[in-house]
């Protein structure tokens, strides 16, 4: 082969390489941009293709179908990804997945200056992702839905919401603390303008804090740091979406030529981040190829080609081990009921967002993406840990002392990509009962201290108010008789928004009025 045309062709392959990187960067930026748009946008509704990535995700589509047994047009883009994967293989992982892009970026940073080691395809670790996929699907049949916990898009959104964004916002706020403290008086107004503009775009409206911040952040940074140990560790070994797409890729119509490692070179083993070439002869496992085109663009002999053809690539049988598969399935089938029969956790007061489906369905539908917690205007929606058992991990609940449910806000229902929180029209939302307020006379100021307060009554948003006042003659600590207005809760008017608990001036974490879970059989008022 003559050198000049070969060089020209190499250029073309490099364009593919850079095209792929550009695509990754673009999708990651789009993901981050949409993430930031999950906020109050100065109007009642959320605008923009916010759910785009969730809609593209075949694993979430599968999870949704398993939990609801219904088809929804919402997920048609995921079907498109399925079809394209059957045609092209795991292009999603290489070109589109924002977590994959992030891992590639982090990996490039962590490994810069290090010599790449040749990777081998050994089934050991990477079997985990298939077994995990099987376990999650079997568990979902038993209504233990953890698919969202491992789904990469859900995981990324959740980690951004609960850990990365609040931490970044904290740093931003501290920076402004310094700037405001150091700025001369004349500059303060300009600085305040800049700060105000940032708060409308990049920074959150208020300083965010989340339960499970450290827990979520540790897991997320753990996944990123694994890049130092092995490139695309998550994608190769753990990602259940990668497993699903890999299984679909078994039938892909793209053939790599040559189909195995060349005996005189073997660079592909080093170039392939997915380590998709087997030991020995070095056949490529098409389930692992993410079409990154490194082997093609960087082949010194200019031999490697990818061809789209009619016949499917010859995929080797995937041998996960029948016993392993059966053990996984049976293990999950046995352990899930054990995890779910803990009745005590259902009694625990958990205030679900307005529009949430009944608890069992809610947990089945919720993919733990954290979108509702991101969009919540008061920062009141918080992730649960084990309050509802393992089944409830990372699912949203209102912590009223942290933030209340804004009476006329309907954003969480709009933000939920799966309908676990149903979108409610404003008039429905205002009537949606998420809890019931209960007075604690041992802490409530007028009852316990005999002086006026009534902050709860002032803030109660229902019309007529669910908290009314009752003037009572009281003997104060000084022995004087005084008329004090005591609050009373009219339970059937209460929707459990929690603004009373949130604004209650009683010192400490326990307010003088608290919101409990509503029950199907409320006592008469």
């Amino acid at each position, binding site marked *: 082969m003559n050198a000049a045309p070969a060089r020209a062709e190499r250029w073309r392959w490099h364009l593919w390489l850079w095209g792929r990187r550009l695509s990754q960067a673009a999708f990651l930026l789009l993901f981050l941009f949409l993430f930031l748009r999950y906020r109050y946008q100065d*109007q009642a509704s959320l605008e923009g293709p916010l759910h785009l990535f969730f809609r593209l995700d075949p694993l979430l589509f599968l999870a949704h179908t398993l939990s609801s047994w219904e088809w929804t047009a919402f997920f048609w883009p995921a079907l498109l990804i399925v079809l394209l994967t059957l045609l092209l293989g795991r292009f999603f992982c290489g070109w589109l997945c924002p977590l994959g892009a992030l891992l590639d970026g982090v990996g490039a940073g962590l490994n810069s200056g290090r010599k790449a080691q040749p990777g081998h395809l050994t089934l050991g670790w990477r079997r985990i992702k298939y077994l995990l996929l099987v376990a999650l699907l079997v568990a979902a049949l038993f209504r233990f839905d953890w698919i969202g916990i491992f789904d990469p898009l859900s995981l990324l959104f959740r980690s951004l919401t609960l850990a990365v964004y609040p931490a970044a916002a904290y740093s931003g706020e501290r920076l402004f603390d310094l700037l405001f403290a150091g700025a001369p008086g004349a500059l303060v107004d300009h600085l305040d303008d800049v700060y105000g503009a940032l708060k409308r775009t990049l920074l959150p409206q208020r300083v965010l804090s989340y339960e499970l911040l450290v827990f979520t952040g540790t897991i997320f940074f753990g996944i990123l740091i694994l890049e130092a140990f092995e490139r695309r560790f998550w994608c190769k070994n753990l990602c259940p979406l990668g497993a699903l797409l890999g299984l679909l890729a078994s039938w892909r119509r793209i053939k790599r030529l040559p189909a195995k490692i060349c005996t005189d070179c073997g660079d592909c083993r080093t170039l392939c981040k997915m380590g998709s070439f087997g030991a020995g002869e070095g056949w490529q496992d098409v389930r692992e190829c993410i079409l990154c085109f490194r082997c093609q663009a960087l082949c010194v002999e200019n031999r490697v080609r990818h061809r789209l053809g009619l016949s499917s690539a010859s995929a080797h049988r995937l041998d996960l081990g029948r016993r392993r598969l059966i053990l996984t399935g049976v293990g999950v089938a046995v352990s899930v009921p054990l995890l779910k029969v803990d009745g005590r956790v259902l009694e625990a007061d958990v205030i679900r967002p307005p529009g949430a489906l009944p608890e069992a369905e809610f947990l089945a539908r919720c993919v733990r993406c954290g979108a509702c917690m991101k969009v919540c205007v008061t920062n009141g929606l918080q992730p649960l840990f084990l309050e509802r058992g393992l089944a409830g991990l990372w699912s949203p609940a209102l912590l009223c002392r942290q933030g209340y449910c*804004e009476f006329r806000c309907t954003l969480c229902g709009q933000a939920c990509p799966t309908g676990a929180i149903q979108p409610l029209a404003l008039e429905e939302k205002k009537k949606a009962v998420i809890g019931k307020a209960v007075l604690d006379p041992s802490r409530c*100021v007028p009852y316990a201290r005999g002086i*006026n307060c009534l902050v709860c009554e002032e803030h109660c948003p229902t*019309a007529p*108010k669910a908290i009314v006042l009752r003037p009572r003659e009281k003997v104060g600590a000084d022995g004087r008789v005084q008329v004090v207005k005591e609050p009373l809760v009219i339970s059937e008017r209460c929707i459990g928004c929690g603004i009373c608990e949130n604004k209650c*001036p009683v010192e400490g974490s326990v307010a003088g009025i608290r919101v409990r879970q509503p029950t199907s059989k409320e006592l008469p008022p």
Partner: protein
Amino acid sequence: MDMHGGRHMERRAFLKRLLAAAALALGLDGLGLQSLLPRMACAAKDSPLVATGTNQDYGRLVTEVISALGGMERFVKPGSRVLVKPNMSWDRRPEFGATTHPLVVKRVVELCLEAGAREVTVMDRPCNDERRCYQESGVQPAVEAIGSSRAKVKHVNSRLFVEKTMPRGVALKRWDFYREALEAEALIIAPPAKQHGSARLSLGMKNVMGLVGGRRERLHVGDLHQHIADLNTVLRAHLTVIDATRLLTANGPSGGNLQDVRVLNRLAASADPVAADSYAASLFGLKGGDIGYIQHAYQMGFGEMDLTKVKVVEV
């Protein structure tokens, strides 16, 4: 409204009796001397002026009422910095009367700009989410519609509160106040007139609570009325514009029920915050003295609450 009149009178009468009992209790404590001093101070001044009027065109209403007070030029000097404090405390639409009507705020701001203000800031520290309150009350869109770079709608920046000692405060000795409000050369308080569970009525002096920092819920504990009067020792409005285009008569201060709203299309303004509030109380059929903080402010010498000593000009 008439349908509910009977119920309200009953409650009013009941509350009056309660207040009488409370006043008796306080009277026994020997406040007689204190109340004499401010009255003497007031007598030396001219009788304060309250301008008021009705009109369905709120822009024109504001213009006419303010000109009856001597025009905005009396309060806003060319090149000065003005802070306009409407009530945007609640995530409610304007027709519910829980927040200041956007057209009233808009015209007040326009008058300040016409008087040559260097900058007019419109702000509040709401009880509900501030972005929703600013938008849903209609105030932010209305002020932005003026299209002047000198008119700014701002959110509270918690770094910009300044702790002030309050030598004239009776119950409060120190509290955090918003720097911009302290520094404003003209402070215009523009509240809606509404019923309030613990303050009885929320008017101009109560509205000052939207410019203070800290955990404001604490101000409600104990003697809210004295706390309101004390805050006004530091932030005294140069101009109070009472938006009585609607009266929120029950379920206040947040409202939410149109049946509780009485449309009056009225506006009242005064340079005397006590007289303005006292006049506004009269719209509810109450006297200034019926409202604890008006009574306290009067006794502390901030202004006149006796409407017989106030010149009320109807435009």
